[in-house]
């Protein structure tokens, strides 16, 4: 099983003409996500047919995230953006711990370390949805490395598609963390008044 893969031909069609096309156009109106989503939309609007675009984006995905790009790979793992830059460093253990504390574990069919971007985002979504006390911690955790990942992705992606996704992701995480700061400040002021 996998959720971490380049867009399939069907997905490209859906982004261009299906439900996801509608969704993307709505998201483009959001100030935090707009620029990134706009870049994605521009790529999707090109003359390439679905098959050629699938291949084009598949090549870029492999080079960016799957190691095919050799030294130019942009690893989607927190470990790569701290310490030595190796994969499988302390964030893997920390994430396993966080996941376990939430009564969860990574599906054994997803052969990725626990600090994979998808897992961290999924856990953040889960913690926020369940009101878990570690939701804020998880968001700050993402804020610590996702901007560097996104910057590398934006610099390395020649297609514009993944650079757009990275821009949107960066905007999303930044916006959420701004909210945390505001809420935290507001909360402190309320406490002071009392």
């Amino acid at each position, binding site marked *: 099983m996998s959720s*971490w893969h380049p867009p399939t031909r069907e997905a490209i069609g859906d982004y261009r003409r299906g439900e996801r096309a509608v969704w993307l156009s709505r998201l483009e109106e959001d100030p935090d996500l707009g620029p990134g989503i706009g870049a994605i939309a521009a790529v999707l609007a090109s003359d390439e047919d679905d098959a050629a675009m699938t291949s084009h984006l598949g090549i870029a995905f492999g080079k960016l995230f799957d190691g095919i*790009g050799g*030294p130019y790979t942009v690893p989607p793992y927190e470990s790569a953006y701290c310490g030595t830059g190796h*994969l499988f460093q302390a964030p893997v253990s920390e994430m396993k711990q966080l996941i376990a504390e939430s009564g969860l574990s990574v*599906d054994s069919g997803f*052969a990725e370390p626990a600090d994979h971007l998808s897992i961290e985002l999924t856990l953040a979504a889960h913690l926020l949805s369940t009101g878990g006390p570690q939701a804020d911690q998880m968001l700050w955790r993402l804020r610590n490395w996702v901007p560097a990942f996104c910057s*590398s992705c934006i610099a390395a992606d020649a297609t514009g598609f993944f650079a757009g996704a990275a821009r949107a992701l960066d905007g999303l995480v930044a916006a959420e963390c701004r909210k945390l700061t505001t809420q935290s400040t507001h909360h402190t002021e309320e406490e002071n008044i009392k």
Partner: protein
Amino acid sequence: MMKLQGKELRMEMSRRSFLTYSAAAGALGLVSPSLLVKGASAQEAMNGEVMSGSHWGVFNAKVTDGRAVEFTPWEKDPYPSFQLPGILDSIYSPTRIKYPMVRRAFLEGGAEAGPDSRGKGDFVRVSWDQALDLVASEIKRVQDKYGPSGIFAGSYGWKSPGRLHNCQTLLRRMMNQTAGFVNGTGDYSSAAAQVIMPHVMGTLETYEQQTSWPIVAENTTLMVFWSANPMKTNQISWAVGDHGGYEGLKALKEKGTKVIVIDPVRTETVEYLNAEWIAPRPQTDVPMMLGIAHTLFTENLHDQDFLDNYTTGFDKFLPYLTGDSDGVAKSAEWASEICGIPADVIKELAHAFAKNRTMLAGGWAMQRMHHGEQAHWMMVTLASMLGQIGLPGGGFGLSYHYANGGAPTSDGPALGGITDGGKATEGAAWLSESGSASIPVARVVDMLLNPGGEFDFNGTHSTYPDVKMAYWVGGNPFAHHQDRNRMIKAWRKLETFIVHDFQWTATARFADIVLPATSSYERNDIESVGDYSNRAFVAMKKIVDPVFEARNDFDIFADIADRLGNGDGFTENKDEMAWVKSLYDAAAKQGSALGVDMPSFEDFWEAGIIEFPVTKGKDFIRHASFREDPLLNPLGTPSGLIEIYSKNIEKMGYDDCPPHATWMEPEERLDGPGAKFPLHISANHPKARLHSQLCGTSLRETYAVAGHEPCVINTADAEARGIKDGDVVRLFNDRGQVLAGAVVSDNIMPGVVQLQEGGWYDPLNPGEENTLDKYGDANVLSVDIGTSKLAQGNCGQTIIGDVEKYTGEPVTVTVFEAPAEA
């Protein structure tokens, strides 16, 4: 375990925009509720220390929560390699192959889809079952359609150590149970020497124990490293590195033995031993040796008694040396014109060699060039004239720089390995005879370009098979093979190219089917420590669980064999640990017969290592028994003597390999006749990796210049071209072009630039003819011809070209540096 339901998750998303947006991220493949399941992980993470081994030596791995966090050398390693951290990095490199992948066009259209998108990175992830079904069906399809010679499985390269998980043997073991395959003979390291030496000495010489270092340290008064840099290359071994050679080098240093290094580069060995550095033009070792030999003869410094009693054919060589046969005396003056070393120095060398107990330690670069057979043949001829072969500390040795030759051999038993089912031969394990046909391994591109074409090899005359599929494991031919652009053209001939590896090498990127293999640190195995010393056996214990979807080659091949109906024959119904135990037990039985005390397998595995005593090995003198009595202990040559003239080779009648050591101009050389370019490019073994291994690790940061492979250039050559230290430069000739980073230095002779081999090929436009290699793969520039009809070895050191400051579009991608605005 119950998965979190996406619907359930999304229902609660309304409170926070993140949730809405993360659903959007889900649409982009970033988030999936099904990644997390309810309940704790069933896997128990490991903590502690594990001993294991590698080409770079024995080490202890610290494991925290199932992750390898630090490798430290075994406390008994006398000279640990500084590359050890790179090994750890290689396990956790972002360039790991994570899943089985198939080239999109191949997956959709099969082999008939054509090779056009090969090398462009257009892969689709598939399941293991899908991948293995595809591999098995391709083997069957190609064999059914083209016969047993349709598949080349002579896969060559520096696979990881370990006597069970020897992926190349396992590939041939699997293929031997099918209709057949084409194998490769020889290797890329010492191909010319290993074919000529059996004619001359009756033995390979390159893969055999040398006179032991304690004997050398005690007796040798002049050590000559000719085209050899043991301080650098002894970091690695084919088995697990023992680094015993460094103890010998240290002993030389402490004693103050005179050392001469003959090399175009002022090497680490020159530095460490404070040696005299002599730098002839590359590829002119033979004339330089002839000049020394001529001086020895004309000044009557040669040992006629030795020549009379231990050699044959000097009388036929002599007219060539003196010029009686061709009108050209091979004098020091003649040699000087070719090699660039003053005649006086050549004569002084002759005097010094004759006066001292001299050990000529020959490296392999001198034979990895056009007519490379001649270099070591001439070195043996020279050593024979000096008459010290078989004496303590005298003679010649062709492995002091490789795998720590000369480190004394222990009393331990030999450790066997899983076999490929082919016929075993003398010497190195990879020289076993297997398959339905075989070609000299470095002629693989010739084979693809000339199906049905005729070729000579060591007295045989054959035709190239029409190969349609190649299967490569444990090697990176897109690093080690010459003339990359010619190779890429030839590779288009293949309908199917299958690769197992653990990293996305240049070769893997050119494959149709890529299977992720474990590194040797993710499986259990056993290996000897020291190719020559056999100092110990080490339990190569699994350090971490396989990462991503990597699987062991053994299991991959077993599953393919199973699909082809031969599963039990492949595994012999033994799993990994049963195999490891059986290999140990067979050695222990032999040890018992030798009087060596061996613990049970369980105790060995628990201890992690068993060391063997060294007794007789300290006193080993190569060819001493032959010297003692050449009649009772003859060499394995037709005459039983050292063959300065070979009647066997004479009978072959090759125009490029005469019956005695001879100087013949190579295809191209620095300042040679008709040279089209002004510089020699020295593609020697790299300092901080093993050929191309570890190029994809953080070690690269210790040597890369502006993100490129370094190119060392002499100060005068750099000034003449307006090149400054740190500049990006373009190296080019009529075969290709590569970028590199300039290192301006006087540690290299004028007229020579160094671009170490093994840099990962990184084409600017994959598939486009003569496209620029962005990183610095020296074999884009080297010539792809056989050394001669005799050995058909590769000519990786036959390269001339030019260098200029690069003024084109910048190509360095700085993905690890955040942009300024971040």
